């Protein structure tokens, strides 16, 4: 690492941290759904993209005030997530995991196409929630990046408390262990599952609204979702602290990797995942202990 001063390193670290936080927001959505239903949502990146596009519709095209537009986006995406489960995914309850993989992949393809038809295939700019930069000595970081870090911290700790203390959260944990038993205990399995999809779509939309100003809104932005997958797997899929940890690890190392190996830009995340999986095949915070027959 030649010519990389201390201040540059700190700068990259902060950039990576805020990027990692955005990955974590997507990954939290993934893990929530997985935790509750053992279904893997490959369209989570597309949920994020859709969130960004809906925000673009409300804020830029209809000219609503930013925070109102953002709130409406979250409400819309919550309804969308609920609908996706209630209308489509619920039909596959109890089918092999692979079937749901394919279903959500197909859903992702369809959503990308719909977004392209409705809003076009170009790049669109979304305003940042807060403008300006924070200057600390020679290190400059955008307030929106600081916001991304803060939001992730709030969401992650909020979720932790929710699963620990709230009645609904405990019900969701029961649901994730054994659907049939949870149903016999009087837990409204269908409604709860759909609510979890709604929550996961909302977190996707938050990530989309925060990522939109950085990378521009386009139909291709959903591919970031695969990095969130890599991060969640590094942490051990199914654990929320693990997902945040893994995504931060990937987010922080990525800019350094890109600077060291400019020709192989963008594969750092996957290489890290491979190394982690080689050492610990179930991720850092393992969730699967023994395979039952």
């Amino acid at each position, binding site marked *: 690492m030649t010519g990389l001063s201390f201040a540059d390193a700190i700068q990259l670290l902060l950039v990576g941290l805020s990027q990692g936080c955005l990955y974590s927001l997507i990954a939290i959505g993934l893990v929530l759904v997985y935790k509750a239903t053992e279904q893997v949502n490959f369209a989570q990146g597309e949920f994020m993209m859709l969130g960004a596009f809906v925000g673009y519709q409300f804020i830029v095209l209809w000219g609503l005030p930013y925070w109102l537009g953002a709130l409406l986006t979250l409400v819309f995406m919550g309804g969308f997530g609920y609908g996706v489960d209630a209308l489509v995914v619920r039909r596959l309850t109890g089918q092999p995991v*692979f079937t749901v993989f394919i*279903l959500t*992949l197909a*859903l992702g393809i369809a959503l990308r196409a719909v977004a392209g038809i409705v809003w076009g295939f170009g790049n669109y700019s979304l305003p940042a929630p807060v403008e300006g930069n924070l200057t600390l000595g020679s290190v400059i970081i955008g307030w929106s990046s600081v916001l991304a870090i803060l939001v992730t911290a709030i969401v992650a700790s909020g979720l932790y408390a929710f699963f620990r203390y709230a009645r609904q959260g405990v019900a969701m944990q029961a649901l994730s262990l054994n659907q049939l038993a949870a149903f016999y205990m009087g837990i409204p399995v269908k409604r709860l599952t759909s609510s979890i999809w709604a929550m996961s779509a909302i977190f996707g939309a938050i990530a989309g609204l925060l990522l939109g100003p950085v990378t521009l809104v386009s139909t291709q932005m959903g591919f970031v979702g*695969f990095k969130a*997958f890599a991060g969640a797997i590094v942490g051990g899929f199914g654990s929320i602290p693990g997902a945040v940890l893994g995504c931060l690890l990937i987010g922080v190392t990525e800019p350094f990797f890109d600077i060291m190996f400019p*020709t192989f830009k963008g594969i750092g995340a996957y290489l890290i995942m491979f190394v982690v999986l080689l050492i610990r095949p*179930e991720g850092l915070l393992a969730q699967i202990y023994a395979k039952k*027959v």
Partner: protein
Amino acid sequence: MRVLFRKSYKQDIRLFRDRTQAFWYLLFLCIALAAPLFLDGYFLDELSFVYIYAIAGLGLMILTGFSGQVSFGQAAFVAIGAYAHTILLSRYGVPWILSLPLAALITGLVGLAIGRICGRMHGLYLAIATLSIAIVTERLIGGGGDFTGGHRGLPVPGIDIFGIAIDQSWKTYLLNLALFVGAILMTRNLLRTRSGRALIAIRDSEVSARSLGTNVAFYKAYAFFLSAVFAGLAGGLLAHAFYYITPETFGMGESIRLLLMIVVGGIGTIHGAIFGAFFIVLLPTVLSWVKVLLPGAIATSGGFDSLAFGMILLGFILFEPDGLYGRWVKIHHYFNVFPMYKRRSFQRQKTFLKTERLK
């Protein structure tokens, strides 16, 4: 309805079930062989693509359909095969007839190495690991400098077998057909041998396969090897069909397309790979016919093709998870038992989630 009596043990491992079946398949083969007589160049090229995709699909079917390892990275092996073949052919002057098997072997060895690593993973972990192999391979080839031609790509030389130039549509068609039929026979043969049955046992239950003495790690890696060999073969042929290869041709999207292809065809059957290849190659042609009938605004927007693709897939997963071949089996069964058809015969068992996670 035909009743099949079991008269010898050989019956279970025969290539065809009975004479009728043999007759139909040989008839199809004859029609395929005679196709250059009545089809023009465009359709012959399309059919060549079908055969090549079917070879790659058979490879993926061995891995995902028979040994149960979901792979999102088949296009990476196709890419390795295509590049190995092109580089051997144009840079080292290896004759075509040697270069193609060599490329397939190189791809197979890469697959073996990857299978050895990935054999320990299951389900989602395996899917994402193979997906990242697809992404990493694309980037590595792109960043490979002069050796791989980087993002500019490589031109592919023509086919030349013992001095006979394969330069016309019908010649490449017959070549692809021959390799395609060979690939089907190989897969069929695999399924009636000990190793094929081991793969299926692993798919159905890894724990019971292990307790019956199957070497799970070996057979998982073996499935990766075979799958990569098929993919490498398809890659070499695909390179010739494209005339010019770039890393982007074999990206992540292509991997997912290959996987979706075998799902639409019908997972876990040889027919499925072939039906899926027909579906994926002929879909753009069919859609271009459909588009003429639609209002201009929908037809001209760029997303129409992928929207149709996504919606067709959603429809298959929700209403016909066994794919095109599953539908064919049902129709066949309907006429076989004519007035007695019961929808229940094909109903899938409903199960409820019980997690493997303990907290």
